[in-house]
């Protein structure tokens, strides 16, 4: 019987959909708050977590999460310093941490690290243990997002107005940043450090024309991201294309189609 094969395909697909639900939901705020570059920086930096895991000989999953959270908090703190423009700062941080991660990997002896898997994802390598922790984290992240939904939406629309109306802006946006960090940590394994931020941006952007309210846009973005994962998986299965890039291409295809079609529910 070949159920070992069927199992790992189902596991992979399930992991992909979990990541899609996360990036789809958090991604709408990424584009509303114009944080696309922020997501990019965070995912580049998370590669440092991989290296650190190997160098220190600890679980890579844990070191990715730890590094993502630390970098996210650093970036949140740096946003208030205005010496350099945010774009410049993020650009420096993104590529220096990516390079640091790559250089550090070169020092790891005895372990052969599959760099490709971390840069572009290796969805078929998801173990059932991974899947269990992904599911748990997905519930945690989406639950927290639901909990902070209204204040987060309010500060996204207008930060000062939200502050005057009693929203703890610093707390809520830090929590949101941490949710993005967790999502990237999970998504890295599935779709890779270089591509994960595209799943934050593309489905959300594609959902815009179909939505009339922020809530609608979030749900539709999650659905589009999941659809992209399924279609990308299918092309990868049929034509043996790399899975991560196929998923991103499918998301882009959905975006382009929706933009060409003469539909516009949200004006």
């Amino acid at each position, binding site marked *: 019987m070949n159920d070992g094969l069927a199992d790992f395909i189902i596991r992979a697909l399930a992991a992909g959909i979990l990541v899609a639900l996360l990036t789809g939901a958090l991604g709408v705020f990424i*584009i*509303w*708050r*114009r944080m696309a570059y922020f997501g990019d920086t965070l995912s580049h930096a998370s590669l440092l977590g991989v290296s650190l895991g190997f160098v220190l000989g600890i679980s890579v999953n844990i070191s990715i999460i730890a590094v993502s959270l630390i970098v996210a908090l650093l970036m949140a703190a740096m946003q208030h310093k205005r010496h350099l423009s945010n774009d410049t700062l993020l650009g420096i941080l993104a590529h220096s941490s990516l390079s640091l991660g790559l250089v550090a990997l070169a020092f790891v002896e005895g372990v052969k690290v599959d760099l490709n898997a971390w840069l572009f994802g290796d969805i078929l390598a998801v173990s059932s243990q991974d899947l269990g922790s992904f599911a748990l984290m997905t519930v945690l992240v989406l639950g927290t997002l639901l909990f902070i939904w*209204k204040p987060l*939406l*309010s500060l*996204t*629309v*207008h930060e*000062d*107005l*939200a*502050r*005057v*109306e009693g929203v703890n802006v610093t707390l809520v946006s830090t929590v949101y940043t941490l949710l993005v960090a967790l999502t990237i940590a999970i998504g890295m394994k599935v779709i890779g450090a270089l591509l994960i931020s595209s799943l934050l941006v593309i489905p*959300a*952007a594609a959902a*815009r024309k179909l*939505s*009339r*309210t*922020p809530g*609608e*846009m979030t749900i539709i973005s999650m659905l589009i991201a999941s659809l992209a994962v399924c279609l990308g998986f299918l092309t990868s299965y049929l034509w043996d294309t790399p899975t991560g890039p196929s998923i991103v291409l499918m998301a882009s295809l959905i975006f382009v189609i929706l933009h060409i079609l003469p539909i516009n529910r*949200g*004006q």
Partner: protein
Amino acid sequence: MSDSLTSPALASLEDISLSLGHRTILRDVSLTLYQGSILTVIGPNGAGKSTLLRILLGLQQADSGHVYRRAGLRIGYVPQKVQIDNHMPLTVQDFVQLGRKKRAPHLTQVLNEVGASHLLSASVQSLSGGEFQRVLLARALLRDPQLLVLDEPAQGVDVNGQAQLYQLIDRLVKEHQFSVIMVSHDLHLVMANTDKVLCLNQHICCSGHPEDVSNHPEYMDLFGDSSATAGIGVYTHHHDHAHELDGHICPLNGDACKAQTHE
């Protein structure tokens, strides 16, 4: 005002100073806001008017001085620039309720009050300047404020709309009895409705009743005296009709003007 002495202050600023780099933004500014009164802050561009409001609201820290807001004070704030990203689908009814924890049962009533009920399900990006200011007022009103803080409420609104907007604010104050602190660059527009004017240019140049301020030498230095502006020959004329928010024409003498057909 006589009752200013008896009613407790809602909020006050004491000797507020702020510099950014070597530039003085505010120097020793004090003011007190009492129940049911309208205070207007006027001053040229860069006078520190908005900064003053931000300090009062706790959005910005002063270098020195003391900020007092009565505990539990409900503030309705209409900020200066509100730009909502085109990527966010947001209707007026969703926008105005962002400032509340629960849905507002009196939502349509409040939108009616500011003349924006026909915009209920319009997207916020489609609003004109005047419409957006009304919607912002509605959001502030939904919080049942004791103090209304308005930062250039008439900016981005054409001249006719500005007068209407100030009339609306005046009417709301009479009905709701809240206090208002408002920033404006045009004393003449707000003159009729304000109790006290504070003329700001980093420091308080002069303050008092609007007529007194408009004759004050420091005010004239900043804004030019009225005989000089009269010399420019601003063309003033009166319309025999006005337009409702939705564009309907209504006669100026008739006070009720509800959805008449346009000839």
